[in-house]
Structures are given as C-alpha cells and as structure tokens.
C-alpha cells in the first residue's frame, strides 16, 4: 500500500463526508461551505492525477467564483433558513429514479474498468514543467478551438440572461 493510495482513500472519505454534509445541513450557508470543501478535495484529486492546471482552475473557478456567487445570493436574499415548503410533488420519484440510474451506471463502469487491463499509472515529476502546460494550450487552441470559442458565447448568454432576469424583477418591483 503506497502513500498515494492512503491519501486517495482519506480524501475520498472527506469528499463523501462533505457531500453528505452539504445535503443534510439545515442552513444554506453551511451547505455552501461544505460544497466549497468538496470542490477543494476534488482539486486535490486532480493534483494526485498530475493535473495541477486543472486543480488550480477548479479552485479558482468553482471554489472561488461559483461558490462566491452562491453565497452572495443566499446572503442577499436572507435565505439561510428557508423551509422546504415548495417542493414539487414529482420531485422525489424523479430523484430516486435518476439516482438509481446513476448508481447502475457507476457500478457498471467500475466493473468494466476492473476487468480491462488498463492500468492507471501516476504521472511522474516531469509534468511539473512549462512544456506540459504548453502542450495543453496547443491542444486547446488548435484541436479544440471551436469549443473554446463557443464557451465564450455560452458565458455571454449567461451574462445576458442574468441581466434580463434582474431587469424583469426590477420592473415588477416598481
């Protein structure tokens, strides 16, 4: 049993615990904080896989930007302790169905992987170079150029959508 495996097992437990904590917290802010912790654990998983760029982007974008947005909304609305009053009637059966599908899928993939001879080797220290980053950039800006540019349109749509929704709210308040 090597040290990397121990780190992985401990982190998995942390990830599962924080995910459960997020689900079962009564207070929305605590839920958000558990989710931040979960994102940070996922970032460490990326580090273990030898992908520092992805790990740091994960923290910057998910833990640093998306969760700040969530916290902002929760705090500005004063929605920390909202009662779950408006749950839709079909929500529960649908959730159960979807989680069963996810569970089956995950089990299948796990078994399929276990049977295949594909072994996951941890990348060596050579990845801590600028060249690995340059290779990634090369792929991103040549092979995946179109998805890259489409991302910006997606982000634009998000911005415009938020503005339109906020303006509608403003109009209703007047």
């Amino acid at each position, binding site marked *: 049993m090597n040290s990397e495996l121990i780190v992985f097992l401990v982190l998995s437990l942390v990830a599962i615990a924080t995910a459960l904590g997020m689900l079962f917290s009564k207070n929305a802010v605590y839920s958000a904080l558990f989710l931040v912790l979960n994102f940070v654990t996922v970032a460490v998983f990326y580090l273990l896989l030898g992908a*520092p760029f992805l790990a*740091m982007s994960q923290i*910057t974008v998910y833990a*640093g930007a998306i969760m*700040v947005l969530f916290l*902002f909304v929760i705090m500005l609305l004063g929605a920390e302790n909202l009662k779950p009053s408006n749950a839709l009637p079909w929500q529960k059966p649908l959730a159960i169905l979807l989680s069963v599908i996810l569970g089956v899928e995950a089990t299948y993939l796990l078994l399929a992987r276990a049977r295949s001879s594909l072994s996951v080797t941890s990348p060596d220290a050579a990845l*801590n170079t*600028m060249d690995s980053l340059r290779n990634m950039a090369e792929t991103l800006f040549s092979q995946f150029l179109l998805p890259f540019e489409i991302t910006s349109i997606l982000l634009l749509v998000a911005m415009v959508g938020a503005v339109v929704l906020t303006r509608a709210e403003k109009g209703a308040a007047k």
Partner: protein
Amino acid sequence: MDWTMWVEWIVKGFVLCLILLTGFAYLTWYERRALARIQVRVGPNRAGYQGLLQPIADAVKLIFKEELTPGHVYKVVFILAPVLTVVPSLVLAAVVPLGTSFNLFGREITLYVADVNVGILYLTSIASIAVYGIVLAGWSSNNKYAMLGGIRSSAQMISYELTLGLSFVTAIILGNSMNMIDIVNEQRGLWFVVIQPVGALIFWIATLAEVNRAPFDMPEAEQELTAGYHAEYSGMKFALFFMAEYQKMIVISMILATLFFGGYLGPFVDQVPLLGPVYLFAKVIILLFGMIWVRATWPRIRYDRLMSFGWKILLPLSLAIAFITATGILLADVLNNQLFFWSIPVVSIIALLVAVAFIYRDLRRKSHGRI
C-alpha cells in the same frame, strides 16, 4: 524522500511564516512612524528605542484582552472566519521565490517553498479563496454593519480580482511562463516594469483594493459602517484580521516585485545567493512605502465610484494592456523589428491617458452616475 527532507521543508515553512509574522508586527510600526512623519507628528517612540518594542507591547495587550463572542452569532463560522482570512495571506507566499539556493553544511537549501509550474494560477486560486473569510465574518456576526461591510468588501475584492488576474496574464506573456522563478530569470536583462509600466501600475492599484487599503478601504469605512466586517470581533480574533491585512500587503508587494521589478535580482546575486532575499526585501520596503504614502495623502473613494472604477475603467484597461503586450511582442518577433517591442510601453501609456481622460471627463460632470 527521507526524513531530513521533511524536517527541512517544515523548518523552512516555519521560518517563512515567522518572517511574515515579524514583518507584520514591524510593518504596523513602520506604517505608524511613516504616517506620523508625513503628518508632521512623531508617532510611537516610547516603547524601546524609537518605539521598536511597540508591536510586541501591542501583541501582549491583544493576547490578554477579553475576547467577546456576542450572543446570536453562528459560533463555528464566527471563529472560523479569522482563520480563513489569515491562512490565505500566509500561503500565498509559497510560490514566491526569495532567491535561488545556498549551501548549508553541504545541503542545497532552496530559497522558496515550492517551484510549481502553475505558480501564477496558484496565486489567483488562493486570492479567490481569501474572499470567504471576510464574507463569513460579516455574515456570522449577525450585525447589520458587519453584514453590509462583508458584502461590500467581497464585492470589491472580486471586482478587482479580475484586474489582478489580467495583470497576471500580462506578466505571463512577458515572462513566457507561469512559473515565478522563470519569470524572475526572464527579467535578467530588463525589468518588466520598463516594458509594461502601465501593467505594473494597474496591478498595484488592484492590489490596494484587494487588501482593502486606502483609498479603497471602503469595507471598513468608520463613518458609514463603524468598522465593517470585523465590527463584532475583539481581542486575538480581531488581531488576526489585522494580521491578514498587513501580511497580504507584504506578500502582494513581494509578488509585485517578483513579477515586474526583477524579484530577487540585483548586482552580484549570482555569486552570493544570500543577497537575493536582501534585494527583495529592499524592493518590498519601497513598495510598502508607496502604499503607506497613498494612505496618508488620498481620501477614500465613494463606494459606487469605486465599483465603477473597477468595472468600467480598470477591467477594460487591463484587457487592453494584455492584448497590446501580446501583439507588440509577436509583431517584434515575426517581423524581427525591435521598434514594435518598444511601441508596447508607448501604446500602453496612451491607453492609460485615454482612461484618465475618461475619469476626468466624468468627474467634471454634475451627476457622477456613470464613469
């Protein structure tokens, strides 16, 4: 990896933390003395020679103060918030090189904690985590002033973080690397501040806002918010917020010095590696004096103008600077003409002047609604 390695790195971590802590203590002294000079006062000069023991006296006082935890707060978050504010301010220093390396009893000791290829992205990720401490402090206090201060402060920090990130992009283009050590080595011939003075200036303004320093210390505006997010904090927990602010000042000056002012480079640094930290220290002292000077002379900016300035002036300007740098460097490279290279500072300064003209025009208007 043998156990001596572990000991070496833990000791190094502790030494760096202690340097930052001492730096924090004496930065308060330095600031009070410098402010006093500027305002024709004397400043603290009673405790010890020239008041040099003042920080220690302050620390002892704060430790023995009664720590109030107001009723009706979320206790766990209330205690967590100062910790979450201090830790990012310390760990930012992990990727900043203080020098190259030196020999100690036959061991090669490097003068940095970690040499990672995504150093700059590490800085942005830690800086983005730093928002949590402040927003949670404001929220958990159950105090309207603290809440408003926390929201204002976090909104300000995220607004200026964008400018910070884009200034990083400028430095990456110039250094052609995301590794801090590579960026320093790239400046052997010429400091980046010469090529991109506007980039350095924007970075500096954004850092002032990031660490909530005057003239951007809105979140703590005494007149409007009593003290902002730390209104309910006292004793050691208050000291931790204070510590975070000053440590961030130091670390961010170190980063600015590393990215634009040649970091640990200086005469004879290759022969005597231990000179590296000395040069960096001198540069940091000068940059810190700039921050204190601004605090002594500039009035605080109104909050809505501060946000307008960040979003409508600094963000477009920093984007323009990044693309001016990229285009200039590539044109010089492709056409093999140094003229394009030297057009970078010229065009950047023109862009800065345009931005200043916009601010000036708006300030002359009767209504200051939009910049």
